[in-house]
Structures are given as structure tokens and as C-alpha cells.
């Protein structure tokens, strides 16, 4: 078992096996699609074949006559309900009612006795559309006279966000070199393997819904609002989740609203499972963005100012887009010293599928641009890529111009470790093997952990002690695969001195678990972890009071360790935890021992309008080396090695932290060189994993992870975030490596073989 010493702990810092592993390797873990209820109907959704059109009429009469069809609904059945992340931008209907705004948007839904019957009925629904001119490029959509997608935004600007700190003009005038470049990030998707799915059952004037969500409490609120139900009539139960990575599974999808409505109408349970094609044409994607970046640098590499203008393709609805815009700017002031910074972000409506959050949310766009531009300038000034980063890297404690406060930072240490690695030392020794060009690239980045979102930021824990010493743990946090259930149990086990197996974590059931916004922004270990720690301490305090009375000592002298409860410095005077639990539970008639805790972080105001303040409780720092081999004839890139030096503070479970970094780096590799939706007037041409290529086992490099340990007082046991850092650090590091191999800077993602081969040919270096 992998161990890293992070303090005098029994369970923390140890790579103990995941608590869900056995259920997952035996096939026993139940996901939403695995759940069946007797009498269940199947829901299928009719989707728009046009990207922008008025709905004139929907005729369901023929479809209704199909034997086995139990109900059909259209957008009008939702009576104008709109949902969205902020009250001011709630613009998305469960099913389109007035017009469709993207290809594949839902317009009607059927509930039938089986899938085949539901599909047959879809074919008989007749929708009359009046096609409207569409717009598919955000810069086109900004032009005067462009088709308007939402009347409430006549200029198509879905959201804008501006930051202005210091004096960028003064900064540029102090620079020896100023560069302006245009960068672009790709049209990519999370790529989880479990399609969206839910099953809903309306009974007793309320609804129970089992749904594949990484943020089940978002759905909880959406359903309450849509169906005008009090929250205690909405019960969301969380099965295992087959990956999330932000966006789609944070949010609700058309199918969720439809199964609830169809169950309400039919009185029967209704289930939907999207096909992967439906996921890939209609689910939330990462925004693709154009970044105009301007940077000033002195001869010694010191950055004097940066100005960014970002234009993001928002697609047809707003969703969580305002937060994306905020995140593209608010931590651009990390991880390098930046005295002058100006940022203008525009999220633009188009008739493309909806853009939203994805792992590395927002930051990945602007950091990619800034990293590459910084290195381009270093090259012009004859500076080493690692040295220029070390020159500018911040050190803790640090406060940025927009008042982001960093209390721990392992960036310099990480960069120095990379500099000492063989991969870096070998860089440039062998630049070419026949037609293979070899390159090693670097990046240095930051990401936030413990995201603070507008609105609520709840994270709480309840621990109920059973009389045999076993413990039931209720949390609203969701493990979408990242391993948080295991880490949360390690925390409670550590506090109570009992093995993690003695604690049972209950998956989210909104009838019992405390409300929690779920998995995003690397918040679970930081915030739910703090809640778990406090709940365990609360339970411990109650037990210690009972024990102290028994042994006639002070409660603070009671120790919980190795499955025992004993008096400090006198292990003889003690009892097994199990026995202590029994005494405590029987010490009053029907005494209930419940530990409660909640995260107290995130109360201070955050200026969402100006980009001032901390969007997270802590910041991780990731530096990365990547080695590539580029085929000079075909442009094909083989990524052979990566080393990730990651400062997550203290890895509470080093194996899980490593796995998170490796997975994120590979997802980042996909974005850097493989993945991209091909679009034709709003239609996705490659909505499957054969044509939208995510990395396979044959594509991935060897990936070493170096844990950089730092001390951060703001997070439980010093644990910061893992993995969002590595998806931000991966693309610039890969592009830096491709530049080292080919001598060419690529500014648009993904860097496909076609782009490389053409650029090499142009440069006259192709063989």
C-alpha cells in the first residue's frame, strides 16, 4: 500500500483500497440504468432536426394511437418553466415550446411499455417548424444583424465579465517585449461512459427519482421548482455514478423533467436512458473559446502585464456559463506574479449545443493561452522555459491584485523537481530519430479547490453511532468516481480511531442526507471533509464526556485510537470502542448519539461582478513535463511520458490522488491532440467514440506523479485539490513539447496530425 507521511496518522496519507472497489469489480454496484421498478414505462425523447426554428404545431394524434403508448408530452406541458444557474438567466425549457435553438433539442417525450414502442411513437409525432436563420460562430453572432437567439439578449451576449486591476497600459510600456496572439480551445465533451439516465416515480403527491448525477441536489431544486413541490416532496436518491467531470451531470437534462412529468401523468414509474449519441449531441460541453492575449515581459523574463479578451461559444442556453466566464479570469492572476491584469470575457449565444462546466472549468482556456504565450516570449528573449516560470512563480503567502490569497504554494518546488528529472536533462540531446521528431515541454499552473459558488455552499455531515460501535455516516456529497467516499471515511476513521470498514457511508438520499451542492470545483474533500471531521469530533466529544464520567477524568484527557477509548498516558484505563459505544448508547433510556458537523468556510463575500476575492478555499499548483514523438511525415503525435509535480497540500489517499492526476492528464491529452466535435451548421457530425476519439490504452504515456507536500491551514489536514490542476497543466505542456519537437507553435486546440503535417510542410522541414 502506498504511503506518504503527512503527519502522525493511522489512516490518512495511506493509499487504502477504495471502499466501493469490491462492489465495482464484481458488478454489484448499481447505476441508474440498472434500476427497475415493476410497472415501469420507458421514456424516449423526440429531438429537433433543425438548429433554429419556430415550432408552429405538434401533432401527436397518430403517435397516441400506438398500442402500448401511455402518455405523450410536449414543451407546453411545462407551462413556461425555465431553468438555469442564476435567476436572471433562467432561459432553458425542459422541452422546447416556442422555438428550438439547437439541433437535437428535445421537443416531445413519450412514455410507453417498452423502448421499441416508445421509439415507434416518436416517428409518428409530426412537428411543423418554420426554419429560422442560424448562427454557429460566436464572432459571427456578435455582428450587427446576426440572428437573435434569445429575445432577452438582442446582441447575443449571454453573459459578460470584466476585470481590471493595476494599470495594464503602464505595464506594457514598462516591458521590453509585448506580444499579441490569438488562441483557441476546442469543442470537447466530458466523455463519461455512463449515459444520462433516471427513473422517477410519482406517488403520494411527490416524486422519488433515482438519477445519474454528480450534483443530485441541483436536480432536487429543479424538480421542486418545475413541479411546484415543497422540497420534502422531492426525494432524489443517488445510485453509483459512472463518471461526471462537470457540466451535464451537475445539471438536469430534458429526460429528468420528462420522466417526472410522465410519471405524474401515468401514475407509473418512468425511466429514460440516453443513447451515447443523444449524450454527445445534446449534453453540456466545454465552451470552445477564442482568446486574444497580450502580454508584456522584461528582458529578464519578468511579466509586467497581461490583457485577455475571451469570446466563448455559449451555445443555445446559459446554464452555468456565467460562472465559466468568472473562472476564465478570476485566477488568471495565478500562478505567476502579475501586477497588472485586464480581462474581458464574452459568452455568446449560438445555435450550437449548450456549453457549460467541465473539469478545469474556465481556467483551462486562459491558462493555455497565457502559458503558451509566456513561453513564446521566453523563446524570443532567449530564456529557458523552466527558468522563466521560476522567475515569475509566486510564493506563499501571496495575495494577487484581485485579492486571491494563497497560503501554500508548491509551484517552485515542483518546477525544480522537474528540472532535475532525467526527462528534462535529456531534453534536446536527441532531437530526431529518422522521421521522428522528439520534444519535451513544460507547464506550470494553478487551480482552486473547495469552490465557493454563488448561492448556497452547504456541506454537512451526520454520524449516528450504533450500539455495536459501527457508525452510519450521512453526507450530501457525491462520489462520481473520484474516490471521495473513501477519503471521507478515512477522515472519520482517523478522528474516531476505528477502521474505515466500521463506518458505512450512505449515498445521497435527499430524504435523509444533508443538502450539498455535490461534486464540482474540487470541493468535496475540502468542504465535506471539513464537515466529516467536525461531525466526528462532535461525536467524540459526546463519547468523551461519558467516558470521563466513568473514569473520573476530564473529557479532554480521553483518547480515541486503535479501536480503543482510553485515558491519555494510561492505555490500561480504557475500553474497546465497541464497548464504549454500548455503554454510551445504554447510558440513558433510548439515548441517541449523533455527531453533527458542517463546513464553516465561504461566508465572506465574493465579488462575482468584479472578480475580487477567493473562489476557493485553497489553491493547488501543478507543473508538468511531457515528452512527445512527432512523425514528421504524417504529423502523428505519440505521447510517451509525462511527469506531474502536483501540490495538493497533503494527499490523504496518495493512490487516489495519483489516479486522479493520471486520469485528468490523459483527458487533457485528449483535448490537446485528439478530441474535437466536427460541426456542420449546428449539427454534430461525430457524435460517437469512433469518430470523436478519446485516448485509449494504446495512446497513453507513462505518467509519473510527484507529490509536492505543502502546509495549508485553510483545509482539513492540509488537503487541497487533485486533478483539475492536471487537466489545466496537460494541454500547454503537450503543446510546448510539440513545439520543442517541431519548432512550431500551435495556438489552436486540438493540435491534430493534419495541422502538424501542413505546418511542417509550410516550414519546409517535413521529410
Amino acid at each position, binding site marked *: 500500500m502506498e504511503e506518504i507521511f503527512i503527519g502522525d496518522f493511522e489512516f490518512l496519507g495511506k493509499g487504502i483500497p477504495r471502499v466501493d*472497489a469490491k462492489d465495482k*469489480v464484481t458488478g454489484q454496484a448499481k447505476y441508474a440504468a440498472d434500476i427497475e421498478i415493476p410497472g415501469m414505462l420507458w421514456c424516449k425523447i423526440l429531438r429537433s432536426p433543425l438548429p433554429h426554428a419556430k415550432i408552429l404545431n405538434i401533432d401527436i394524434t397518430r403517435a397516441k394511437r400506438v398500442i402500448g403508448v401511455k402518455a405523450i408530452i410536449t414543451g407546453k406541458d411545462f407551462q413556461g418553466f425555465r431553468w438555469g444557474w442564476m435567476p436572471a438567466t433562467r432561459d432553458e425549457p425542459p422541452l422546447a415550446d416556442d422555438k428550438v435553438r439547437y439541433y437535437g433539442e428535445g421537443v416531445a417525450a413519450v412514455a410507453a411499455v417498452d423502448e421499441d414502442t416508445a421509439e415507434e411513437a416518436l416517428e409518428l409525432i409530426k412537428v411543423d417548424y418554420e426554419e429560422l436563420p442560424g448562427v454557429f460562430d460566436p464572432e459571427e453572432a456578435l455582428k450587427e444583424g446576426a440572428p437573435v437567439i434569445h429575445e432577452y439578449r438582442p446582441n447575443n451576449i449571454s453573459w459578460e465579465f470584466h476585470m481590471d486591476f493595476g494599470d495594464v497600459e503602464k505595464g506594457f510600456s514598462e516591458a521590453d517585449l509585448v506580444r499579441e496572439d490569438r488562441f483557441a480551445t476546442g469543442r470537447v465533451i466530458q466523455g463519461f461512459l455512463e449515459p444520462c439516465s433516471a427513473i422517477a416515480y410519482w406517488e403520494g403527491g411527490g416524486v422519488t427519482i433515482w438519477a445519474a448525477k454528480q450534483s443530485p441536489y441541483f436536480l432536487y431544486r429543479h424538480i421542486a421548482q418545475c413541479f411546484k413541490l415543497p422540497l420534502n416532496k422531492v426525494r432524489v436518491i443517488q445510485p453509483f455514478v459512472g463518471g461526471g467531470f462537470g457540466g451535464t451531470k451537475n445539471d438536469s437534462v430534458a429526460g429528468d423533467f420528462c420522466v417526472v412529468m410522465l410519471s405524474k401523468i401515468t401514475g407509473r414509474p418512468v425511466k429514460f436512458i440516453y443513447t*451515447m449519441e443523444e449524450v454527445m449531441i445534446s449534453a453540456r460541453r466545454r465552451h470552445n473559446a477564442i482568446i486574444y492575449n497580450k502580454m508584456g515581459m522584461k528582458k529578464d523574463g519578468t511579466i509586467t502585464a497581461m490583457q485577455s479578451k475571451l469570446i466563448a461559444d455559449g451555445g443555445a442556453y446559459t446554464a452555468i456559463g456565467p460562472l465559466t466566464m468568472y473562472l476564465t479570469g478570476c485566477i488568471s492572476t495565478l500562478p505567476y506574479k502579475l501586477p497588472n491584469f485586464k480581462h474581458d470575457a464574452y459568452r455568446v449565444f449560438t445555435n450550437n449545443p449548450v456549453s457549460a462546466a467541465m473539469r478545469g472549468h474556465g481556467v483551462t482556456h486562459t491558462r493555455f493561452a497565457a502559458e503558451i504565450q509566456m513561453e513564446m516570449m521566453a523563446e524570443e528573449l532567449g530564456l529557458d522555459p523552466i527558468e522563466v516560470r521560476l522567475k515569475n512563480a509566486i510564493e506563499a503567502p501571496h495575495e494577487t491584485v484581485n485579492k486571491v490569497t494563497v497560503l501554500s504554494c508548491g509551484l517552485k518546488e515542483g518546477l525544480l523537481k522537474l528540472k532535475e528529472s532525467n526527462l528534462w536533462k535529456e531534453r534536446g540531446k536527441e532531437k530526431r530519430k529518422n522521421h521522428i521528431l522528439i520534444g519535451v515541454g513544460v507547464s506550470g499552473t494553478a487551480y482552486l479547490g473547495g469552490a465557493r459558488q454563488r448561492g448556497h455552499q452547504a456541506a454537512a455531515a451526520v454520524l449516528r453511532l450504533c450500539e455495536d460501535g459501527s457508525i452510519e455516516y450521512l453526507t450530501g456529497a457525491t462520489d462520481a468516481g473520484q474516490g471521495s467516499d473513501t477519503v471521507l471515511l478515512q477522515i472519520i476513521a482517523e478522528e474516531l480511531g476505528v477502521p474505515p470498514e466500521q463506518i458505512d457511508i450512505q449515498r445521497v438520499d435527499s430524504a435523509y442526507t444533508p443538502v450539498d451542492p455535490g461534486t464540482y470545483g474540487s470541493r468535496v474533500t475540502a468542504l465535506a471533509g471539513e464537515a466529516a471531521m467536525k461531525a466526528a469530533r462532535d461525536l467524540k466529544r459526546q463519547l468523551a464526556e461519558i467516558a470521563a464520567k466513568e473514569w473520573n477524568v476530564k473529557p479532554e484527557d480521553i483518547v480515541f485510537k486503535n479501536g480503543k477509548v482510553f485515558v491519555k498516558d494510561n492505555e490500561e484505563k480504557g475500553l474497546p470502542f465497541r464497548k464504549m459505544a454500548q455503554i454510551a448508547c445504554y447510558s440513558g433510556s433510548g439515548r441517541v448519539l449523533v455527531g453533527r458537523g458542517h463546513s464553516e468556510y465561504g461566508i465572506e463575500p465574493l465579488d462575482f461582478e468584479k472578480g475580487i476575492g477567493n473562489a476557493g478555499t485553497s489553491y493547488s499548483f501543478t507543473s508538468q513535463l511531457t515528452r512527445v514523438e512527432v512523425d514528421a511525415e504524417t504529423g502523428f503525435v505519440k505521447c510517451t511520458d509525462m511527469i506531474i509535480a502536483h501540490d495538493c497540500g497533503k494527499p490523504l489517499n496518495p493512490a487516489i490522488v495519483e489516479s486522479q492526476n493520471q486520469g485528468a492528464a490523459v483527458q487533457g491529452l485528449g483535448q490537446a491532440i485528439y478530441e474535437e466535435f466536427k460541426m456542420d451548421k449546428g449539427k454534430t457530425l461525430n457524435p460517437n467514440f469512433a469518430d470523436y476519439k478519446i485516448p485509449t490504452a494504446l495512446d497513453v504515456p507513462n505518467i509519473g506523479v510527484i507529490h509536492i507536500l505543502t502546509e495549508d491551514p485553510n483545509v482539513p489536514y492540509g488537503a487541497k485539490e487533485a486533478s483539475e490542476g492536471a487537466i489545466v497543466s496537460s494541454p500547454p505542456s503537450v503543446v510546448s513539447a510539440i513545439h520543442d519537437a517541431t519548432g512550431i507553435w500551435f495556438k489552436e486546440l486540438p493540435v491534430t496530425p493534419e495541422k502538424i503535417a501542413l505546418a511542417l510542410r509550410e516550414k519546409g522541414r517535413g521529410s
Partner: protein
Amino acid sequence: MEKKEISFRINGEEVVLHVSPNRTLLEMIREDLKLTGTKEGCGIGDCGACTVLLDGVPVNSCLVLAVEADKKEILTIEGLKENDKLHPVQESFIENTALQCGFCTPGMIMSSYALLKRNKAPNEEEIREAIAGNLCRCTGYVKIIEAVKRASSSIGGK
């Protein structure tokens, strides 16, 4: 459509079933036999989440018709355990943290199991090749490859 009677062994048990000629092996396993350990990711043979063994050969069960299983032997993730003992590949996935969300895991394990059945001591390239049809979006594959290597050692491969 007229249903056809087929008989097969699945996870060691004899089964006789009437299935539609257009039913896929995956649908039969998940919906008729209620063995939901086998997952449906893409349903069109791109992701490998539905991998099962048909007469010992790993197949995407979404691309195989149920009738093709007639007189054959099917092994799914539920059949790997012997009595209460996990197979070494399963043990190795647990020990090496070779999974995250777990959705690809049953298919990934079936492909790995099939590899070790035909080659007790595969090298890294052979492991990568064997699981190349099983997509995993969470782990980056590194720990999966390691887990298969270690499972190979524990069954006496090397």
C-alpha cells in the same frame, strides 16, 4: 417477430430462453437475465463497457445477437468469483486502485481476464492491446495496466 428458443450456459448455469431474433446479447443479459453488472455505454461497439466472454472470447455484447449465444458458454463479471473468492484480476484492481467510477470496470476486467487466460505473462504492449477496446475516462489507464501486470504475477505468470 417470432421468438426463438435458445439454450446456453451463463456463469456455469444452464439456461433456456425465448428471445427475439433482433435482441442483442447485451439486452438479453441485462434485461432478461437481470445481470446488470455488464454495462451499456455506447451500444455500438465503441467503448467496450459491455464486454463479456462468449466461448472464452471477449466480445462487445451490444454487437452480438442473443441467438448467436445458442449452445454456447457465456461468462459475465458476475461469474468470475469462485465461491466467495474474487478472481486475482478483481483482487488486483482493488489493491491497485485501478478503477474510479467503475462503469468501465466490468468490461475492463473481462478483457483482462481473457488476456490472462490465453497469455499468463503478457508484456505491457500486450496488455495495452488487450484493453484497447475498453475505454476508461477516469484513470488514464496507468493503474489498470499495472493491475493486470500484478495479476499476472499473482497467477504465476512471472
